[in-house]
């Protein structure tokens, strides 16, 4: 019987793998890239698909060729080769995965580092307090001169770093904006920080990603008829206008509250 050379088969495996990788990259279903970090994270994912496809291609090709080539015929009493191992080959298939995971680690660390805009946000960007509750979110705009909190909507200026300080008043929620490739839990009893830089004007879905009780399903702005507002990313001037308006409303509300208290005590 004709022997099959291993090396050409491995090369064929790589080719098959590249085809699989390309298919996976083409069919990927990532949401729109709406933050500074998203393209880096997506490129990381494309790199993963690249080597994953190749490894998968090699493994599957060897499996299929083995099954085809080394299949026992009916009443086949032959035994396989008495081969207990080939040390150099075992070294190769230990070293190659090691190199791949080192590349993954380097890629991951680079993206992690570049995404770390927390410090920047503290001085120049928006600082937003996010309070998770069953079942919704409340926002506080921390770097406005007057106290602007308990807002139902999240409005942010485009291209400005933002740091979220997440808290929860009841159970664990998770604040996930898929278009920003950003997620962080809101945990009761502690403040979790996460930051991003929105780069596209538009409205984006906010999804609660951690099971938080009976209303968890509904804590997702992408559901039809959701009453939770999506995040709105607007231009700087629109943002300033919105903030001014909110401040005016907050002042009016405070005034009427004081007025009510006065009338109340007078009566």
């Amino acid at each position, binding site marked *: 019987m004709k022997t099959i050379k291993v090396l050409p088969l491995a090369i064929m495996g790589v080719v098959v793998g590249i085809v699989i990788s390309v298919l996976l990259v083409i069919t990927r279903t990532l949401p729109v890239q709406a933050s500074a970090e998203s393209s880096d994270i997506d490129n990381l994912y494309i790199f993963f698909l690249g080597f994953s496809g190749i490894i998968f291609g090699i493994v599957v090709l060897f*499996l299929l060729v083995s099954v085809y080539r080394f299949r026992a015929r009916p009443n086949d009493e032959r035994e396989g080769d008495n081969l207990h191992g080939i040390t150099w080959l075992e070294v190769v298939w230990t070293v190659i995965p090691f190199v791949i995971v080192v590349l993954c680690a380097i890629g991951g660390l680079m993206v992690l580092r570049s995404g770390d805009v927390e410090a920047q946000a503290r001085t120049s960007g928006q600082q937003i307090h996010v309070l998770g509750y069953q079942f919704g979110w409340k926002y506080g705009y921390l770097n406005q001169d007057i106290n602007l909190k308990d807002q139902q909507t999240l409005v942010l200026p485009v291209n400005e770093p933002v740091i979220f300080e997440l808290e929860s008043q009841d159970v664990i929620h998770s604040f996930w904006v898929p278009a920003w490739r950003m997620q962080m839990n809101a945990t009761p009893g502690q403040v979790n920080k996460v930051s991003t830089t929105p780069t596209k004007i538009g409205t984006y879905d906010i999804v609660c990603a951690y*099971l938080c009780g009976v209303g968890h399903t509904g804590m997702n702005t992408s559901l039809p008829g959701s009453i939770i507002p999506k995040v709105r990313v607007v231009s700087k001037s629109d943002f300033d206008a919105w903030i001014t308006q909110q401040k005016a409303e907050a002042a009016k509300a405070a005034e009427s509250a004081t007025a009510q208290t006065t009338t109340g005590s007078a009566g």
Partner: protein
Amino acid sequence: MTAVLKPTLARCLWVAPAFAALAILITIAARSLVGMTPVLQESTLLTVAYIAGGIGFIVGIGGFDYWFTWMRGGELDPNDHSQHGAHSWGDYFKFNTDHKVIGIQYIVFTFIMFLVGGMFAEIFRSELANPGQQVVTNQQYNGLISQHGVIMIFVFMVPVFAGIGNYVIPLMIGAADMAFPRLNAVSFWLLPVAAFTLLSSFMFGSFDGGWTGYPTLSEQSGYGMTLYQLGVQLAGASSIATAVNFLVTIIAMRAPGMTLFRMPLLVWANLATSALVVAATPFIAGAQFMAMFDREMGTHFFTVAGNGDTLVYQHIFWFYSHPAVYIMILPGFGIISEVIATHARKPVFGYRAVAFSSAGIAILGFAVWAHHMFASGMEPWLRVPIMLSTLLIAIPTGIKIFSWLGTMWGGVLRMTTANLFAIGFIFTFVIGGLSGVMLAVVPFDVSITNSYFIVAHFHYVLFGGSIMTIYAGFYHWYPKVTGRMYNEVLGRWHFWITFVAMNLTFFPMHYQGLEGMPRRVADYAPQFAWSNMLISISAFVLGASTLIFVYNMIHSARHGKKAGANPWGGLTLEWMLSSPPPIFNFPATPRVIGGPYRYGEEGAKHAIVPEVEPATVETTV
């Protein structure tokens, strides 16, 4: 009349309620004596009733009969083997000390639990088939997904490997039984108690915090959550006791000549797994005790209102639950090594590397727990070392995969159903492994964690990994256990339907997760409608394929053709015995004279089993 006094299930029917009633009475008396109000605190009484009832069940089935007799100075015959071995059907429903009987008890019981857990999945898949909510309420939905996860993990996947190991390991190492046969039986009988505790929580609205049961949501839940905490502890206790048993058995009871490097790889895998279980499982038991005390006794380990810390629960929980992933896959790796070597008629390629990679996974497995918590708000610096250790664990896993490919290459592959499942396993497990490498990388993980991408990943690892290996093992040792061959045609149908439906069920979930569909939701955005319909249909087909397997197993046990001692031509010790093996396994202690996989070597043997015990030389006094 005598049936209710002898150690049987009938005796359990009154002993367990009697214990529960007694515990309730004592609690009521104690509460009224110290003046606690209300005296009839429902959750407290239920909890003591469940704990005492569980102990009562073990007493009823006869778990402590031997020890009680010894304690009251009764007569004990050390050579009394009346509880050993199955002589009739009924013996499988009794307290039995034979590892082969216990193995079958484990396998049948856990497989029934697999069907129950699968049924829950089919119910919530029918909810998810269409957008909107039609079948179940949110509350029921959360209960079903939580039960699905807990039943599958704690009373199917972890113990089914204990069952396979129970049956096969003592045979493989040439032992007469496990080291502690009574403890072994108690470990098994704890499982029905655990399963009852978990499933009966449906009477109290089920537990609904996912299989993870994180506080503070768990503090809000109904009484079912306490039963989750109790059930997990019971299953954990069973698992720890079995692991201790395996450790002692494997270390101390190997036949003469069986050095560590002559052990079959399944034995290696079980050794590594048992070490993991013994070291890791107490953590989840501890976490569940503390969480239960928070709920039932007013302590403040994890309650934020009492300055407790919810993040600590997550750390302790995952310190067990990540090693648990390896507890659920390492024995499967062992099965695959046995199945592929035997059906490819070729020695395992790189035996030592495969053996050491099990040990490597077991050790590294302790250093990766926090990769479940990248978005939890833990210390940010901790993410980096955990990412690196998680990536490293891919290497020993890769070594195994490549070694199996090397084993098949140049072999003579007999395409039995067992081998088909082993080959299918490599295909699906590689997918789960590769998505695992992706998820190790922090920035990518936090962009999609808690989404359907995660659901896809761990179902590829647990269904595409563990369950495929379990099926491979079932088919491989079926002739040994029953003495008859299964039907290959039905087996092949089972494989192909399971394999195709499994991939159609779980692969599209990757895409859903990337696109922004979170897990544990009963409804979704319209763009996910068609993919969810596809997944639900595939899930129903997947469920139906199990019925082929069940029919094949039951029907062939009666009508299959006789298997003979060694239908596969295996070299390891279990194949040197009749099928099914004699009650006391080996007629005489076997001697191991070589490695377990000496295929392709003319006339090579792994061991010699003497026909009778050589007469021991009387030493003169």
